[in-house]
């Protein structure tokens, strides 16, 4: 179907034509970068719902989805990749059905498991980029730690109420990681997840679309080691919509994970030596 001389099928040229003619994508060369990329999305909830279809639509070759949650009616105002007929189904399977119909050229792989220190390395291995669409500080530290150890760039985002945040972490192993930004975890009772805090669907959705744009830009090499500046984006939906970009610290030499003398190594994580539960407190965070 595709070889060196004809790297894509005619159907693919027709499907991606409108994005290939945008100069910043780099045409066929850029489309092949997308086709040869493997992206792991952790969480098919409020962020993953709008992000996943744009990644699949753009023609990313392989998309992995990690989520062991099932679809509930209370998710549907914001998790619009699912629907009322899918209530009770695994979110990763529900999303896969939608994406397979949207673009059969994309290989969708599902991981209906809860991400943990013992399975994360196996799941991450082989992917080029990781998207953190989860909703607990515990998982955010774990995703970043594993990505740093495997040399993967992370697009990390979150949202609550009418606001959202986004950052690119461990960019090409030179940018800061989650622990550079947050060396000390927040006290557990100061953290509010959407389980209790409430969220406006399109506000978290907008942040999920921001993630898709950042991922495509990473794959297309719009960011380089030379031009990349660490940043944190803050979106607010009310009362006026705004998107601000803050200039952030670089990688920290004393970071326990990405610094000069790291103690958070693959071995330390996989052996259970890094106790994420204890580290982030015992409060029960639910993925949503």
């Amino acid at each position: 179907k595709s070889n060196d001389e004809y790297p894509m099928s005619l159907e693919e040229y027709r499907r991606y034509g409108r994005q290939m003619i945008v100069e910043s994508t780099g045409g066929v060369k850029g489309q092949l970068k997308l086709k040869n990329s493997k992206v792991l999305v952790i969480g098919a909830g409020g962020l993953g719902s709008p992000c996943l279809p744009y990644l699949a639509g753009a023609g990313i070759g392989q998309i992995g989805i990690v989520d062991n949650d099932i679809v509930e009616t209370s998710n549907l105002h914001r998790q619009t990749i699912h629907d009322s007929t899918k209530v009770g189904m695994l979110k990763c399977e529900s999303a896969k059905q939608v994406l397979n119909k949207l673009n059969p050229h994309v290989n969708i792989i599902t991981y209906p498991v809860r991400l943990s220190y013992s399975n994360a390395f196996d799941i991450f291995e082989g992917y080029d980029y990781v998207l953190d669409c989860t909703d607990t500080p515990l998982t955010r530290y774990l995703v970043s730690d594993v990505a740093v150890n495997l040399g993967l760039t992370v697009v990390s985002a979150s949202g609550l109420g009418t606001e959202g945040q986004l950052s690119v972490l461990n960019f090409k192993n030179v940018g800061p990681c989650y622990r550079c930004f947050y060396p000390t975890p927040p006290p557990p009772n100061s953290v509010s997840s959407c389980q209790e805090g409430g969220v406006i669907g399109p506000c978290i959705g907008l942040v999920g679309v921001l993630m898709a744009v950042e991922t495509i830009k990473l794959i297309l090499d719009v960011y380089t080691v030379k031009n990349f500046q660490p940043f944190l984006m803050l979106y607010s939906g009310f009362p006026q919509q705004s998107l601000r970009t803050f200039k952030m610290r670089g990688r920290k030499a004393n970071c326990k994970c990405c610094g000069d003398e790291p103690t958070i190594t693959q071995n330390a994580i996989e052996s259970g030596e890094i106790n994420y539960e204890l580290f982030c407190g015992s409060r029960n965070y639910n993925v949503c």
Partner: protein
Amino acid sequence: MVKVKVEFLGGLDVVVNKVRVHDINLMVDNATLRDLVNYICNDMITNPNDIEVFIEDESIRPGIITLINDTDWELEGEMEYELEDGDVISFTSTLHGG
């Protein structure tokens, strides 16, 4: 005296009567960010129980990002940063929902 704008983002406005943006005249000579933080604790946070949402061990609580004119305070001297007229100081808690 120094005139600065102070923002409480990411839901942190709960500690200041849900008002996100405040114009502050700080009546201190050569005021630093530390003076501003003291002012926030003493004069702006109405409920004393809320101080621990903002402060831990005499610094900004972990999980809160502090920005000086849209730049990470780590790049600007943190608590020792000397305030200038027109500065925008933003505090945002880190969101976790997804």
